[in-house]
């Protein structure tokens, strides 16, 4: 049957989990839809958007959406947060759910690459740019972690001392 038995779902648990991951506003959402009306995810037809994700969690869904990549398409534009009449901060709910997905490694390969780059180079978006830079009259390396070993070590220390380290991404 294509029916959800809501009483059998543990709504409290799902809500507590999302709050622990940074989505405390979820309890205030009244499902008015203002966020979804301006959300790029909704406009382009992703299976999830801020409002829908919130509803799923409010009704006790948790594991079901773990493989859904929609949350990873959120551009963090925060337009939802600006228009929400209940101070839910819907983008924070998207990110909170992402954290659950991330810590379960339900992420794409491109996302994995970014974490590796962040650790190895200090830059999540990395490409060899020496030629381009010199072409416009700049030194081959920018004055960032790319040309400062001590600084890179600092970034690595912060990453090594974080829950991210346990995921074996870098």
């Amino acid at each position, binding site marked *: 049957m294509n029916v959800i038995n809501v009483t059998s779902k543990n709504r409290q648990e799902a809500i507590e989990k999302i709050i622990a991951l940074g989505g405390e506003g979820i309890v*205030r959402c*009244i*499902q*008015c*839809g*203002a*966020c*979804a*009306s*301006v*959300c790029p995810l*909704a*406009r382009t037809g992703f299976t999830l958007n801020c*409002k*829908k994700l919130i509803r799923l969690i409010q009704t006790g869904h948790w594991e079901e959406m773990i493989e859904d990549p929609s949350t990873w398409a959120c551009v963090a534009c925060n*337009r*939802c947060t*600006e*228009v929400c*009449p*209940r*101070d839910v901060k819907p983008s924070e709910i998207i990110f909170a759910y992402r954290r659950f997905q991330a810590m379960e490694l339900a992420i794409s390969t491109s996302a994995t690459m970014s974490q590796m780059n962040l650790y190895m180079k200090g830059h999540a978006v990395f490409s060899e740019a020496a030629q381009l830079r010199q072409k416009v009259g700049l030194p081959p390396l920018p004055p960032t972690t790319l040309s400062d070993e001590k600084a890179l070590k600092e970034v690595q220390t912060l990453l090594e001392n974080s829950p991210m380290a346990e995921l074996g991404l870098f």
Partner: protein
Amino acid sequence: MVQVSTNPNIQLLTYSEVEEVSGFVGNFQVKVRKKQAWVDWEKCTGCGECTEKCPVKVPNEFNAGLDHRGAVYIQFPQAVPKKAVIDINNCINCAGRKFGTEPRISKRTGKPILAPCERACPAGAINRSLPLSPEGEVLELKVGTIIVATGFKVMEKDWFKEYAPQHPDVITALQLERLMSATGPTGGKILRPSNQKKPKVISFISCVGSRDAKYHTYCSRVCCMYMIKQARIIKEKYPDIEIYMHFMDVRTPGKDYDEYYTAAIEKGITFLRGKPGGIEVLPDGRLRVMGYDANLDKDIEVDADLVVLATAMEVPEDIKQLAQKLSLSLDASGFFKELHPKLKPVETAVEGVFLAGCCQGPKDIPDTVSQAKGAAAAAAVPLAQGKVTIEPTISEVDPQRCSGCGLCVPLCPYHAISLREYQGKLRAKIEFTQCKGCGVCAAACPSKAIILHGFTDEQIEAQVEALTSCW
């Protein structure tokens, strides 16, 4: 209102402000300032000749800023009493006719040169030579009970930045009401303010500023019904206008209300559940409402010619001052607080002061009428009986112990305490009809001269003992 104005037992004071209230139930003294109208109301017949001659243009408050009025104006055609006033801050004193100055004499005709308003008045009600006081006149009234019914205002559209408030075709529902009125700026024709053309598509947005943590968390209660009313009237008059109504929820809990709503659906008005998050301004000046249909779980767009925002009801800014004058308290949303939400809905913490209408909370006309009749009846009871029942748990001063320090006088939130002469000395005296038994004075009195009946030290100690003893 006309009936009120002609009733011999009712004195109507319009264009007036309450300045000060003192005394207590049965014996209130109220100072009322009758504002200076600058027009002699004994003579003014409300013909409106003066208003047509005034060269000044000020946004017309009564038409929600959609058109202009002069500096001399009659607030609206059905005003009671129908009398003109001069808005002195905007009056430019034509012909140098400041009030209290003599007119110049025309060399040509030898007659005085008058301002257009005084020249226009056939009744001679405007005489700018008179040195009228800008302060108006203060009346002192003695009244037994008071009903507060100061009403509400609606939020302006400028708060709602996501809804293109800079655009003239985004209007508040109150402005639409004026556009629909036969006495409004368009004579009852629905025209877009930007180009005075009839709109083909109208979008309504509900809960604008109501149910919103940024503005007001309460529901304004009347918007759903008046929007449906406006939509139905427009649809009946102009069946070709398409109407879309964006709702968070449709709330129609009243006798025959839901039937009114469902009939609107049958009449072809489209209801969309979901709060729009924005409006895009299209190059031709039309407005694209960025909506969301919660039932379809899909973003939707409506290209509208006119967008109507049902902005929240709220209290007027000066409600706090009035509350102070009356010693009334306000609730978390800023409305006057009733004594008990269920059992004392028209009474207040001040004996003899009653509430009616939206100053106590948003409500529609039937509810307001019911509450007003309740308040009127409740206010009449003490007047008819000539006496009131008071609570036994109130405070009393023992004048023998009181040192007359006066510490308690300013502390009392109900202004019940004053210093009176007692055996040749000043002693505190609590007016028992005003005392609410809060106990602030009893706790503060350094001489322990005040007892709060029912809560004497002995009684409280006995209670503590009973609660803490083992059995």
